[in-house]
């Protein structure tokens, strides 16, 4: 089957086109705008559509929360470790599924899909006693390990698609030229996989950031991630302070992205000169 890249001709219906854009703005973007306004508002009287006065007060009072900086550091650390473990386990698994046919492959695929089906809450309840026995409860390592459970299936998926799209010709060519396995990974796959590594890192980080129940059960209240601080705030704190806190949750993935970006700019020469091949 030939796939024609041609996009179907667009009939001119500007009303619908604009309607879609307005929907995107109202449904997806407006909440962020209200959130930002709320975080800078000092007393927002119902039913006003804009806050009466703006101030830094809520941000200042959040900055006085002593658990904030340690919680952000531990959250970044856990997110970073979870993302790296995801790459280490996910890249080979994705390659194995994409480039090889082997006995028991459908069984392996099923096992890789299971964590998306079986409730992670159930899994964590099941391994709780085991984690106590091996001394991983109440530790950062224990939390990192359980955060890998809901993230790894997505990472494997991302790399499987990437390797399927790239094919195995690149590797064969490099091998023909006498490159070792390690050289192939470093010089062929790594640059080609940058976009997928990017997606996998971001997805793992955001999912890790979103865990409350898993962290509470395995961390036992000792591993205080940002989510652990946020939940008690949700019921008690004032609206503007909670808005600031929520803005931080949106800023963290963004700063993580920038951190990763500058890291691999430092260590890997960009994919630019491979593109021409």
């Amino acid at each position, binding site marked *: *089957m*030939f*796939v*024609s890249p*041609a*996009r*179907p001709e*667009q009939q001119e*219906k500007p009303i619908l086109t604009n309607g*879609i*854009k307005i929907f*995107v*703005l109202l*449904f*997806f973007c407006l*909440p962020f705008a*209200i959130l930002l306004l709320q975080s800078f508002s000092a007393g927002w009287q*119902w*039913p*006003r*559509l804009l806050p009466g006065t703006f101030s830094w007060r809520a941000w200042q009072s959040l900055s006085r929360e002593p658990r904030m900086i340690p919680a952000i550091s531990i959250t970044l650390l856990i997110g970073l470790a979870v993302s790296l473990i995801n790459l280490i386990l*996910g890249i*080979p*698994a994705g*390659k194995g599924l*994409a*480039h*090889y*046919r*082997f*006995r028991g492959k459908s069984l*392996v695929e099923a*096992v*890789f899909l*299971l*964590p*998306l*089906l*079986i*409730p992670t*809450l*159930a*899994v964590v*309840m*099941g*391994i709780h006693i*085991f984690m106590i026995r091996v001394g991983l409860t109440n530790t950062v390592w224990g939390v990192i390990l359980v955060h890998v459970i809901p993230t*790894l299936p997505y990472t*494997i998926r991302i790399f499987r698609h990437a390797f399927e799209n790239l094919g195995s010709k690149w590797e064969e060519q490099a091998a023909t030229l006498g490159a070792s396995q390690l050289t192939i990974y470093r010089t062929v796959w790594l640059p080609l996989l940058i976009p997928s590594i990017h997606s996998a890192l971001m997805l793992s980080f955001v999912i890790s*950031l*979103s865990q409350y*129940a898993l962290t509470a*059960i395995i961390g036992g209240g000792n591993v205080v991630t940002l989510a652990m601080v946020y*939940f008690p705030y949700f019921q008690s704190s004032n*609206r503007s302070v909670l808005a600031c806190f*929520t803005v931080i*949750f*949106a800023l963290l*993935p*963004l700063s993580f992205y920038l951190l990763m970006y500058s890291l691999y700019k430092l260590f890997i020469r960009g994919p630019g000169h491979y593109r021409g091949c």
Partner: protein
Amino acid sequence: MRSLGLNNHKPYLLVLPALIFFSLFVLYGIGTVFAESLNLSLNTGSSIVKYYIELAEKPGFWSGLILSLQVSAAATLLSTIIGVYLARQFYRRVPDSIWHALAWLPMLIPHFAAGYLAVLLLSQSGWFSGLLAQVTLIQETSRFPVLVNDKNGLGIIVTYLWKEIPFVLLMSMPVYRRMDWRYEDVVRTLGGGQWQVFKTVEWPALLPVLVETGIILFAFIFSAFELPYLLGVTYPKMISVMAYQWFYEGSWSNRPLAMALMTVSTVMVLIVAVVLLGLIQGKRYRMMRGR
């Protein structure tokens, strides 16, 4: 796809680390949950399914289960429908990637943070209620319907929609990019309209992806704890919140009940997955035989 000999050990080495990780945690975990949900101290003469009987008699179990099913089914169906509609319109009418990026924004923040946005916008003293008051549709906050912390989980459903529509977009946009649009010309030449194009050209390509997305979403929403905990009510409680509280409370006496509840929800998710997968399997079979 390289199909080397079956004796090659390379693919096994590649998948082994992830396989060990999942076996150690996921398979062992769910196995333990099932084992602990059974009453194995048979010396007292009590039934092996004692905890399941207890669970069925617990006040709030059935209403919680029904609520969980409603919320997950509604959020999954609606986000799939709206997500596919948006993907279709994006592909046909709004090709500029800046709009796609805007629609993906919600994926950046955790579910519970999105829950706070629901409070800001949809609660009785929220922004929308203020908007309605500005256009004099309501006079006081109490006239605005209870959408957050409501008994039917409406706030939870809307928040899931906000978070999952971008996910459906992410999954279905590639399908649109890969589609063979010459089929559309065929349909149009034969006099078919928009609906015919969607049904005969787009739907068959979308279906497998949508089934996969639907299963992932249903399984996730059915068992997620964070949003129902923050946006739910004390009664009825969604089952994930019930299980978490039984598991986490000081005394461990309710732990077997939590395990039984988690086993029930795992079985329900697996049933839904098998039914949905059966849908496309049957379809494939029909296509193989020439419909």
